[in-house]
């Protein structure tokens, strides 16, 4: 019985591997759009989309088949005249926020965008302290 399970699993794996190999990559996975402006637009968008199967890589830098499929999607949609942000929204709806490297401002992510402002204020506060002390110091010196 156990052997049977192992054999079926093995056959299943072989079957999957064969299926993966026999599927050609989508045409626009490794092919650029003819219009350089559209290609640049597609490339800029691809660089901000996460390859879901990889380790911290965008779909623009990945050999994973899934990244190839997503590149194909992005290029065909850009060629069809879709807005890059609309494509991003479509992908986010499909795969969740995880797919987009550009965090949107939402209930979950607002602290991320508030952080630089807070840091800036903190920095100004620290500097102001220094500045004033320096002034009084100058007064003493002269």
């Amino acid at each position, binding site marked *: 019985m156990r052997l049977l399970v192992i054999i079926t699993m093995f056959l299943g794996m072989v079957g999957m591997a064969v299926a993966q190999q026999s599927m*050609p*990559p989508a045409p626009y996975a490794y*092919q650029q759009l003819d219009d350089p402006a559209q290609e640049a637009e597609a490339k800029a968008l691809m660089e901000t989309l996460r390859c879901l199967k990889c380790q911290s890589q965008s779909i623009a830098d990945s050999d994973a088949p899934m990244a190839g499929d997503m590149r194909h999607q992005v290029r065909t949609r850009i060629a069809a005249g879709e807005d890059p942000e609309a494509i991003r929204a479509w992908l986010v709806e499909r795969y969740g926020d995880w797919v987009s490297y*550009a*965090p949107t401002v939402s209930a979950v*992510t607002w602290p991320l965008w508030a952080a*630089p402002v807070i*840091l800036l204020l903190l920095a100004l506060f620290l500097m102001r302290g*220094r500045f004033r002390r320096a002034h009084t110091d100058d007064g003493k010196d002269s």
Partner: protein
Amino acid sequence: MIAEAGLACLWLAAALSLLQLLAGGFSLAGKGEQLASIIRPVAIVQGILVAIAFVMLIWLFLRTDLSVKLVAMNSHSAKPFLYKFAGTWGNHEGSMLLWVTIMGLSGSCIALLEKRLRSDTMIATLAAQAFVSIGFYAFLLFSSNPFERLPSPAPEGQGLNPLLQDPGLAFHPPTLYIGYVGLSVAFSFAVGALITRNVGPVFARAMRPWVLGAWIFLTLGITAGSYWAYYELGWGGWWFWDPVENASLMPWLAATALLHSVSVLATRGALRTWTIMLAVVAFSMSMVGTFLVRSGILTSVHAFAVDPERGSFILALLAIYIGGALALFAIRAVTIREGTRFSFFSREGALVLNNVLLTAILGIVLIGTLYPLLTEAMGTKVSVGPPYFNPVGAAFALPMLVVMAAGPLLRWRGDSGRKLLNMMALPALVAAVTLLLVVLFGGQIGILPLLGLILATGLAIASIIPLWRRNLLRTPLNIWGMVIAHMGIAVALFGMASESAFNQEVLVASQPGESHEVGPYTLTFNTIEPVAGPNWTALEANITAKVTASGKLDTLNPQSRNFSSPPTQTSEAALLTRWNGQLYVVLGEENVDGRWQLRLWWKPFVTFIWYGGLLIGLGGLLALIGRTVRDIKRRRHDMQDAQNAQAEEAAA
């Protein structure tokens, strides 16, 4: 036997570090004056023992002793010598042993070489160092024993991840680890000085070489890692804002700030609290880096093992060390005298401003890196990547570069704004000319790369102004170091901006005989043939690169490699390096119609990124040599004075 001997050495070293901590603690508490004398020898022997343990592990890897679990899991008898050797630290346990080895050896170095510090500060420093070591020894011995045996030897090893089978592995991890550990030494000095209330210029001079050394190694480690990722991953990217990259960038940012503030403390006696704070932050960042990488909380090439037990262990260490240090800081910070004061418009003022901006960038990177972990814990998975880090980081980095250009031109204590404006005229002019040239000839480029190019050229000029009207032969080495390191920042920035702005990409499905144009080159795909290496087979393309204008020829051989153990496919890019850029060629897969996917890039001035990194490291090295030589001279001078005084007394 080798494994058992290694393990024994490791246990002994751990026991000695405990002895070092206890002896230090008791002698500081005034309960055993004689204990103080054993601390230095104990620290030295501890370092030697852990180094022996590490050599034992290397030996096991070189012999491919498959009865040892770690070797069987990560090595293979058919692996080339270099990767058997470097593979010792290409895994979790080995890399942690490398970490404690470097730490132990640094402890020995402090014990042997450091003679300036007051003896109680010295004892406290070595005790703090032992305290940090004990945590890592415990981590190794209780949850990551590298010398564990298998019940029965494995028939063959499982091999090393092919992405790691690169000369980069021999160089990149040890350099980064030396950097991290160097920061732990700086931290020990800071704790020692806090405990004994001895924060002042002498302490800063003792700490400075360690900070400088750590910073040099971090710089080189990050530079090497970036270039490794660039040529190995096959898509021409050189920085991904990957959490693991950020884990090395954050200690570097903190070390950069610390390096500058410790100089102010050593030269001017100012910024005392701030320097101690930065030392704590820098060490915390290297601990956070270790936690991120080693706990397996991130899935990445760097996170060799996913094991929640180890994660909790490191998190506990992190809490103890950082929490303890911050508590000590909170208690003792009030006792530190503020030190010499200065006007805002001075060298110190510029350094403070730069320090604040560097720390703000550090804050951005830290928040951006940890935020996804936080939201994931709350149930939402988000990604934070280049669209966040690039603009937000630049908002702080660009002003910092301006301050960096102006700072070295200001005098200590106070200076006039008029003079500064005059000196900044030339850099401003060069920046304006760059702007004009890019607008005229550069085509349409993004705002960040444009600002990067402008600031890079302006900064390059500003960074050499400190040499103006100086006798170049008599200029102290540390001034040269500063000039070269700042120049390195400008060079690296120029490379980054140029690559982002002018990168040309061509993706084609090609067959032998066809030609394609990219940048100034015409590439002809000639043949494709199978080749074999020691533990891989590959398909290798032969491509001729012709400079379209002059007709000069070169040959490129990109490969698509198949490794057998573990079975993995990698692409080996072929690079053609010229002074003005790099041609980057990758062979992809074969399409159904028999055409081959080729990826071709022309990346103008991309190499400047890493040349810049090397310059920064070289600048650090010159400064380190200059400072050390000066210290030795000063010490000899003092000794001679003392001898003369004695001689005079004797004569009288």
